[in-house]
């Protein structure tokens, strides 16, 4: 297995070098950002072109990073979500408070919390860019947390069992998750790239070692 990482220590290759070479072995791609059109994505795409196994693969990346796909996959695999809706305009059945996530090609870190019904139409109009793109609307039922998930580990102790399951299902080595915590436990709302300095790289290094030794 080749480990490709933007953090040079311990890795076999950095993304730029990796992208110039043919690939003959399975690949573990470690990056804080796997978004489409970013280096993290190209590493996985390059490995796929050479027909080798790669973690994460491009389907897994897209399934995690595009909100409706994230929600559907979570539901199918028994990860708790709350009833999200894809909308381009306000319909009467939605009541604040809600979380909104833009589903367009341009926006990142797009979470907006709307706590009053009267603010909903304007916010949805803005986030949908005038009804051109859908917005993913999630009811707000708990306390919102942003956590960083690294190989199933979490920056928030309370969510450890949840991030472990998330990693099993989604196979994304590093990402930021937006979750709500309520009486029933953890609810998944969104996945986006982690900010590099928020990642606990010592945890990532330990996991990398474990994986390397296991091979």
């Amino acid at each position, binding site marked *: 297995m080749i480990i490709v990482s933007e953090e040079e220590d311990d890795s076999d290759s950095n993304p*730029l070098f990796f*992208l*110039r070479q*043919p690939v003959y072995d399975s690949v573990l791609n470690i990056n804080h950002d796997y978004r*489409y*059109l*970013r*280096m993290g994505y*190209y590493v996985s*795409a*390059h490995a796929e*072109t*050479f027909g080798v196994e790669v973690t994460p693969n*491009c*389907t897994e990346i*897209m*399934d995690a990073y*595009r909100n*409706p*796909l994230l929600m*559907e*996959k979570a539901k*199918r695999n028994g990860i708790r979500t709350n009833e999200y*809706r*894809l*909308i*381009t305009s306000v319909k009467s059945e939605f009541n604040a408070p809600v979380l909104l996530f833009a*589903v*367009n*090609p341009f926006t990142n870190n797009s979470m907006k919390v709307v706590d009053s019904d009267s603010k909903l139409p304007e916010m949805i109009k803005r986030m949908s860019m005038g009804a051109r*793109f*859908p917005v993913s609307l999630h009811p707000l039922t708990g306390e919102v947390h942003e956590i960083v998930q690294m190989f199933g580990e979490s920056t928030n102790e309370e969510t450890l069992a949840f991030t472990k399951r998330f990693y099993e299902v989604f196979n994304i080595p590093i990402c930021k998750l937006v979750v709500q915590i309520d009486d029933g436990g953890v609810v998944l709302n969104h996945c986006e790239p982690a900010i590099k300095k928020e990642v606990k790289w010592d945890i990532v290094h330990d996991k990398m070692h474990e994986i390397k030794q296991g091979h």
Partner: protein
Amino acid sequence: MKIACFVEAYNFEIKSEEKALLKFKSTAETMGHSFEFIYKDDISRISDYDTLFIRATTDPSSCAYIISRLAEQYGLKVIDDPHSIRTCSNKVILHDIFQKNNIPSPGSVLFYGDYSHEIIGGIFKSLGCPVIIKTPYTRFSSHVEKASNIAEFIEISRHLLRKAKVLVVQEYVRSDFDWRVGILRNEVIYLCKYYIPKGGWKVKSKINGKNVWGETIAVSRDTISPELKDLSINLSKHIGTGLYGLDVKETNDGFKVIEINDNPSIYDGFEDVIDNDIYEKIISELVS
């Protein structure tokens, strides 16, 4: 069967595109299927259908990708499938596939913004002059530029790299037209010549500040040269079994593939003029 056709309002703006969409609908209905246009507000009810045909512009960042992937997961037959969208929408990934599989194509390198003498000199030495510069996500010939010297190369690439992480730089291959080879399930279903307008070098060129499209001339698929046919089918097999449109230049040195598109344009009175059974062929594939 219940066929969903995912479109956006702009698909009905050009008469010949609207007419083609209506031909798909009437063909499907004549064949005993229902055919319904659906829009982004209908994404969540895609599992109500048996098969999905996407005519809205595709890209991994678009709604079309979301509906394609959801439909695939619900077990619908899908054109364009998510893998084809991810692969064909990205020029960097296509560059990789062409190199790995020795697809005859213009000389091509990836450029990440290293402006050292060695790298820039190397590009012009290996590709000649002028060179073509493309972003990964070019569409309808936008973000495809020609640089005739190093100064132009630096200016254009710096500008494009503000949005893209990487660019594809290619040898310039001159031609009067691009062959468009329409492929479905790894068979040729139509053939056209997309002419380059006079005074331009792209099928859609800016001439005197105005966008001008070249002519489209349909050619019988039966007359395709064996070399072009083999090349096109072979490349399509590296992507999948969906509906594709290849752009290929014919040169003294043989055929050179420019790109393979998912979601190829099909307009009434253009691609369908000679091989007008493409509607039946596509509907049959969707319900197979």
